[in-house]
Structures are given as structure tokens and as C-alpha cells.
């Protein structure tokens, strides 16, 4: 049976959803050891999702990547896992890159599925905005794979509490960095990555003031608000709202895109929504190629009427 290491970050007082998604896949591939980053709370949940062992890594205020990568590298040398799974997320990427360089192996980034085949690994990658799927292979293990969020569905299977031990984090000297403070954006309504309904705006809104319509509509629908990179870079909304290749991946029941062209880097982050509604004044905007309902029109006309109709109900 294959041995699989899975990196899971603690989010609040429990494992992150991304981590639990990875476990849903990992447990079908082999025996699962979780490297759990954080205070080490709710490890039982990791067992319920299929982990048989947990290594607790708590770097405190040290930037995790260098010491955690060094500690995992030591374990890899002594335990020889076949596969190391991480998510396509900030700290995951930092650890994967450093670990790969330490071990002298590659990283398979942005994977949406993974198979172990006769001592090799095969990973699927959505390319060109998800219109094509490339399958990559690598035969030099251990395989380090970064999995995109929402590729698998987290599901508890009721496993027993896993054995837990501390993962000692070595001093990496000049590679160390320190987290000296933390700032969270205020957020109204549900979390973008988990919301059942998402309302997003793009450059077609024309101004930061017009984003107020997105916020109002979201409030009426109990939705999270999202954005394209164009308006994040323009400083209209914080980066935490960005949907797409370099932002969040969302899979809501309904996604409303207002004034968004539908660039491939945006599409990869939202095209798996169950229902997509798009409003754009350009009838040829690529967003319409994925929209269940496309409204060719001006956001400044359609949105106010929509908001009014909803508040009249």
C-alpha cells in the first residue's frame, strides 16, 4: 500500500476545508499521514476524514515554509512516502517549493486529479481556462503535488482518532523569517470560498462606487461578494475577494458575473458553479460561453432594476 503525506493547515480551530478535500483523495491512494500546521486542535476530525497518523507542526510566529519543509524532508528521508499532497494555496506552495528543492525532485502544480500508476504519478491539469486537460507524468519520487481547491469533495468516513506526535521544526538559520503581525479584512456575509451564492463584479462596473451594487445584491441574496483581478489591482476591493487562477476557486450553486469579460484566468476559478448568470454589454464577451443565462446589457441599468425587484418582494 502506498504511503501518502498530506499537508493540512489549521483554519480557526479545525482543519481547513482544502485540507479535508485532499484527505478525501489521499485515503483512496494509500495510508495517510497528515502534517498538521497550527496549534493542533480537532485532530479527531483528521481521523474521521481518513488520516491514520498526525504530525503536529506548530511554528508559532516563525514563517512556516523553511522550518516545516526541512522537517518534512527529514521524515521523507527516513520514511520514504510515495507521495506528498498539498493544496494550491499560499503556505502550501511555499513549503512545496522549498521541499522539492531540498529533495531534488519536481513539483506538479495546479493539479485537478491524481493517479498512482506502476510507481509513476499521473496528474491532470486544466489549461487554457479549463477548456483542455493536460495529463502530466513523473517517475522520480517522492512526488510532490499541489491540488487546486474544490477538486475533491471533503467527506467524513468516521475513522478512529489518529495517533498524534510532534514534528520537531529545525532551526534553518538564515532562511528563517518572522510573522510580526496579522490583519484580517472585515467581511460581511458568508465566506467567498464556501458561499452557496456568489455575486462578482469586474471592470465593466466602471468605478469603485458601482461596486456598491454588487454588495447590495449580495446582501439581498445572502451571497458572498467576489471580483476580478482587474478591479483588485485597481484597488477597488481587497485581494481576498479575487476569484480565479491566482485568487479563490469557487463552486457555488449560483454565480452572478456583472461587468466581467470572462478571461480564462477568471473562468478557471468559477466555471464549475452549478448556475452562472452573466451581465455584459458586449454580446461577444467570453463569459457568455459558460453562462446559463446571459444578459446582454448595461450593468448600470440591469443591476438597479434587479435590486429594486428583489427588495419589492
Amino acid at each position, binding site marked *: 500500500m502506498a504511503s501518502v503525506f498530506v499537508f493540512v493547515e489549521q*483554519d480557526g480551530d479545525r482543519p481547513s476545508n482544502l485540507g479535508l478535500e485532499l484527505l478525501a483523495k489521499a485515503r483512496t491512494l494509500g495510508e495517510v499521514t497528515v502534517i498538521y500546521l497550527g496549534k493542533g486542535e480537532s485532530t479527531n476530525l483528521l481521523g474521521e476524514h481518513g488520516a491514520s497518523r498526525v504530525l503536529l507542526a506548530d511554528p508559532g510566529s516563525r*514563517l512556516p*515554509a523553511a522550518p516545516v*519543509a526541512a522537517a518534512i524532508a527529514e521524515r521523507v528521508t527516513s520514511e520514504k512516502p510515495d507521495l506528498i499532497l498539498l493544496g494550491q494555496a*499560499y503556505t502550501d*506552495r*511555499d513549503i*512545496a*517549493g*522549498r521541499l*522539492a*528543492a*531540498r529533495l*531534488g*525532485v*519536481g*513539483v506538479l502544480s495546479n493539479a485537478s486529479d491524481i493517479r498512482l500508476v506502476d510507481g509513476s504519478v499521473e496528474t491532470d491539469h486544466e489549461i*487554457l481556462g*479549463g*477548456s*483542455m*486537460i*493536460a*495529463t*502530466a*507524468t*513523473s517517475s522520480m519520487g517522492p512526488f510532490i503535488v*499541489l491540488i487546486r481547491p474544490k477538486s475533491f469533495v471533503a467527506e467524513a468516513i468516521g475513522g478512529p482518532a489518529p495517533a498524534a506526535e510532534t514534528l520537531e521544526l529545525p532551526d534553518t538559520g*538564515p*532562511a528563517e523569517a518572522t510573522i510580526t*503581525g*496579522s*490583519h*484580517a*479584512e472585515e*467581511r460581511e456575509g458568508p465566506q467567498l470560498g464556501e458561499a*452557496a*451564492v456568489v455575486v462578482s463584479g469586474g471592470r465593466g462596473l466602471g468605478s469603485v462606487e458601482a461596486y456598491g451594487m454588487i454588495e447590495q445584491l449580495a446582501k439581498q*441574496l445572502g451571497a458572498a461578494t467576489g471580483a476580478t483581478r482587474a478591479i483588485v*489591482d485597481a484597488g477597488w476591493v481587497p*485581494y*481576498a475577494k479575487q476569484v480565479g*487562477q*491566482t485568487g479563490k476557486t469557487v463552486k457555488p450553486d449560483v454565480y*452572478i458575473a456583472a461587468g466581467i469579460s470572462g478571461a480564462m484566468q477568471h473562468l478557471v476559478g468559477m466555471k464549475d458553479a452549478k448556475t452562472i*448568470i452573466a451581465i455584459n454589454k458586449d*454580446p461577444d464577451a467570453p463569459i457568455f*460561453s*459558460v453562462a*446559463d*443565462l*446571459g*444578459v446582454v446589457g*448595461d450593468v448600470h*441599468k*440591469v443591476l438597479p*432594476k*434587479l435590486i429594486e*425587484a*428583489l427588495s419589492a418582494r
Partner: protein
Amino acid sequence: MKVVVCVKQIPDPATPYTLEEGTYWLIRPEAQVLDDGDRYGVEMGLQIAEKNQGTVTLVSMGPSGSGQGIRQALAMGADKAILIEDPSLRGSDALTTARALAAAIEREGFDLVIAGTESTDGYSGVVPQMLAELLGVPALTFATQVEVATGTITIHRQTADGYDLVEATLPAVVAVTAGVVEPRYPTFKGIMDAKKKPIEDPSLVDLGIDASSDQKVASIVDAPSRTGGRKIEDDGEAHLAIVELLEERKVI
């Protein structure tokens, strides 16, 4: 202060990308442009060098072609460039790329290495972290703000719901996000000067590395595609169709 900025030349994103038969490697035309995401790194480097009596050296790996993308970055004000080019580096994975860049950077010497968060054509998003490990320094990644003082660097590092303040001593690698600074446009003088600036081209032997990537693309197939549905022209009543669909989906 010695600032090194990693920049990549890529096929113009406005043109359709084509892949080589058999290997599925991206076909790179003679004339490649500077990756837009790297303009932020160049600007950041120039600003830091200007404040700290420093120099900015560009490092790039890939086929030189007309070198237009590198000249673009030199025209912004960088002092010189190092371009690593070798047929055996074709189809390099992130680690091979990072090893080549690290070897050139080590040879050059550095206080600060700046890279982008991900490249537009490859977006493996791990080259800066690999570089940092190979160079034995911290990787301050996903930086939305960068401050350099004597011997130290502090950044805002993006997190899922905001940012962390992260601090380290130099030397270090920093990977910046788009929007971290406003990139300058090259001036006419900048463009003329760039033509005379040196571009070194060390061989793999000079750098003491060899190229070997074990990752391969085995196949590329069409994804099960999502097709567009109904498209309606707003006649003043289109919002009602949205309301109807939201009702149908039980959102309201």
C-alpha cells in the same frame, strides 16, 4: 546594495499559444515580450536600488530570440542582464529553472532577489520558493507591500482573508504580486540606453549545472465542456429573467 530581478520572456499573451507536437512544449516565437507580471518586480527593484545606492541586475532563463522582452526591462532602468540559454533547457520544469537561475544569481552575488508570484505562461508558482531554498535564504512571498531598511526587509504577505506582516534579514528572496507598485513606462532615453546595456550569456558549464527534467506531458484532451445557455438582449425587462432563474434555483 545588489538587487537581482528574475524576469521571463513569454510569447505575447494576446496571440494564441501553440504547442509542439509530441512534447507539448510551448512554441516560443523569435519575438517574445516581458511577462507583464515581472514589470512589478523590475519597478520594485528599481525603487529599492534608487533608495539604497544599489544596482539592478536582471536574470532570465529561456531562448533569447530577439531579446525584446529583456530590452523592455532594461529600458525601464535596470543596469544589466544575464540570460541563460541552452537547447538542453527546453521544456525545463520549475526545479531545473530555479537551479539555473540560482547558479547565475550566486555567481553574481546578491542582497535581494525579486521575482513575480507566478509566470503568465507557466504559472507553476514555485520558482521563487525553490530559488530561496537553493540560495539558503527566506522567501517572502505573495508580497503586496515591501519595505527595505538597513539589512532587513518587511512585507505584507497576502493571506486568505487579509495579510500578515513578515520580517527577515537580508539577503532574501521576495516574490511580489501584481499591483505592489505602479510600473514605470520606459522613456525614449531609457529605450536608447537599453540598446547599449550588457547582456551576459553564461554557459551551463560556466554555471556548473546540467539540465534534467523528469516531468512530461503525456496527453492533452478537450475538457468536458460547459456550453452557454440562453442569451437575451436587455430590453428593460431582462432583470425579470434573472429573478425567475433565482426563484427556480431556490435562491429566493
